[in-house]
């Protein structure tokens, strides 16, 4: 009857998951993201028009049955370009954040764990990069690398890196101060093991949240760069590039600017909602 060790608490991993699942707006965000991700992934097999098939006879046509979202300045189908554009936008968001993570997290962990001059050097550089406004840095980098989607992603990735370095460093400092890291030391575990098993998984939740939110801003940044002509190059579509072109036909064909704007808004909203939901779900205080 009197079990010494009957665990009575609910399983915790599922608790985060449950919290996320019951988070209505997060789920809405997840659905938005999933929808666009699905379109982006399946663009090539969806029964839609060729996004670069031009039709001189049907330029800048308003939405109609034949072209649900109208046509662009070269008579290409906007609907299909929007779907293909999702590819560029999502790719840009995800790849640039991946770059930032790949560079930022290890550096931040090193700085936070070892401290001393390593920390001093990394932190100073981070600070320097952080005090250059994100977009200016991205523009300078993008024009250094030359206008292309890949280069825009690299530029945004580099520009987003310091945020992750700083976040990771701060989190690492917090985690290092935790008793369980000291307990790992007391057990006699080696530094790489401690970094891998103790520091990394425990700094992950905030990094994950930040990643989601950064994907959102990276998508906007890609659109901004494309808008300035530094991103995706023609004839491949991207929402920012579409806006860039549409800007010239604002009066004659306002819908050309409408769709990409709405799409960017929705995807970014999706990522933001998801990020917020993740943050709430991972926050132990919010019960």
């Amino acid at each position, binding site marked *: 009857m009197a079990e010494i060790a009957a665990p009575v608490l609910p399983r915790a991993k599922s608790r985060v998951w449950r919290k996320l699942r019951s988070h209505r707006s997060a789920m809405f965000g997840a659905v938005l993201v999933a929808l666009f991700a699905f379109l982006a992934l399946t663009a090539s097999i969806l029964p839609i028009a060729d996004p670069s098939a031009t039709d*001189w006879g049907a330029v800048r046509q308003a939405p109609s049955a034949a072209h649900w979202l109208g046509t662009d300045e*070269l008579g290409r189908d906007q609907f299909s370009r929007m779907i293909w554009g999702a590819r560029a936008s999502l790719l840009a968001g995800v790849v640039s954040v991946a770059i930032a993570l790949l560079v930022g997290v290890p550096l931040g962990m090193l700085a936070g764990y070892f401290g001393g001059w390593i920390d001093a050097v990394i932190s100073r550089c981070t600070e320097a990069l952080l005090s250059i406004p994100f977009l200016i840095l991205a523009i300078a980098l993008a024009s250094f690398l*030359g*206008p292309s989607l890949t280069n825009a992603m690299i530029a945004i990735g580099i520009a987003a890196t310091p945020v992750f370095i700083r976040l990771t460093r701060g989190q690492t400092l917090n985690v290092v101060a935790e008793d369980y890291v000291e307990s790992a030391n007391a057990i006699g575990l080696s530094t790489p093991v401690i970094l891998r098993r103790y520091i990394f998984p425990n700094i992950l939740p905030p990094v994950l949240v930040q990643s989601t939110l950064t994907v959102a801003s990276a998508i906007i940044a890609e659109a901004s760069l494309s808008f300035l002509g530094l991103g995706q190059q*023609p004839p491949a579509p991207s929402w920012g590039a579409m806006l860039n*072109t549409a800007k*010239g036909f604002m009066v*004659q064909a306002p819908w050309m600017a409408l769709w990409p704007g709405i799409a960017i808004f929705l995807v970014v909203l999706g990522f933001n909602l998801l990020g917020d939901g993740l943050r709430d779900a991972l926050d132990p205080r919010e019960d």
Partner: protein
Amino acid sequence: AQAQTLRIGLESDPDALDPDRSRTFVGRIVFTALCDKLIDVGADLSLIPQLATEWSFSEDGKALDMTLREGVVFHDGTPFDAAAVKANIERSKTLDDSVRKTELSSVESVEVLDATHVRLNLSAPDAPLLAQLADRAGIMLSPSSFDSDVAANPVCSGPFKFVSRVAQDKIELEKFGDYWNADAIKIDRVTYLPIPDSTVRLANLQSGDLDLINRLAATDAQTVENAGNLVFAKAEGLGYQGITFNIMNGAKADNPFGKDARLRDALSLSIDRAAINQVVFAGLNAPASQFVSTASPYFDPAFPVPARDIEKAKALIAEAGVSTPLELELQFPNRPESQQVVQMIQAMAAEAGINISLSAKEFATMLTDQKSGDFQASQVGWSGRIDPDGNITGFVSTGGGFNDGGYSNAEIDRILAEARAESDVEKRKALYHEANVILNEEQPLFYLYNEAWLYGVSDKVAGFTAYSDGMIRLENIELKQ
């Protein structure tokens, strides 16, 4: 009455307002109001008197005599005379960072004959010199302002004098009361506002915040025409847009298009120039076939715009014996219009079996890459000069300043040099015809379209005329309230 200010929207901010250091096209527009030149350009592109009332070349073409207008004063009150001309031309030739040196390279010395007569001694006959004197090389600054910062406060003798400038924001001028032709000036002030985005420029015109906008987007012309309170104006331009090939500039020239003129011709034939003009420019520009536009007296009707001919293009490719599909890298400046044009070309060329890969570059990068031969083909253009020499010699003569493709043909070099030294129009025409024949055969570059100058004008503005040189002349313009 209230001071009347004409507000003009420009597509970009002029650079230094010093005629010897100015390089931008919009800068020239501002100089038109601010500074008089020795010679002016008429609506028919003929050279007409401005500060010089008469001019003539000596028999051997090595001296240019000019008679100067009397009673002209600079904005600071300094009188204009032959000594001022000498001082100005010498400044252009000697100032450290003068960009006028090449234009005036044939001028060896300037002789003051008397107060109103001046002679330019030339090292060799130079027909295009007159056209240079109708441009910034001919602008006369007040010699007493040389010591101050000219760009910050240019002192000329034009109909308007400089008031203030805020970089990237506005340039303000006001009417110069002592102008020699003051009667023709009916407005009190003029303000130039650089607004790069054509939509925003148009929006400002529509809302009444601007009275006149330069470089109306072709696709907006309809909007302007439809608006009750706006007027659309247009003039044929002198410039062109085309495709330049890398013929002999470095390793990248080693590609089928660099080596075989037939392929270049095939590409040219695959392009439907009329369609481009229609789709991208609402039919307002002109499809082009040669280095001058129909506005120029030198236009050669023997070379009409090539019609699209896919079959012939394919035949030429077959004849060249290369394997299809052909691959070609085409670089272009990342501007919306160029982007549309090259995308259309890409689609059209594909039908002839030419796969074009596009590479957008910032203008600065593109020029550098072009100069260093890091390109196969480049979609570039030229804003155009009144004298035909300015539209061709630098581009195709051996070692020419703009000959980035490295094209070299001794025959062409000879013909163009001869035409340059010739001042008789008919003889020059014949020479240029000869050149056209060769160039049409070899196609080191081909032409796509001539840009027209498009303006949106408020209906409050009366008396505005569009000129083929793209300058906005303020004489006779009136503002109704």
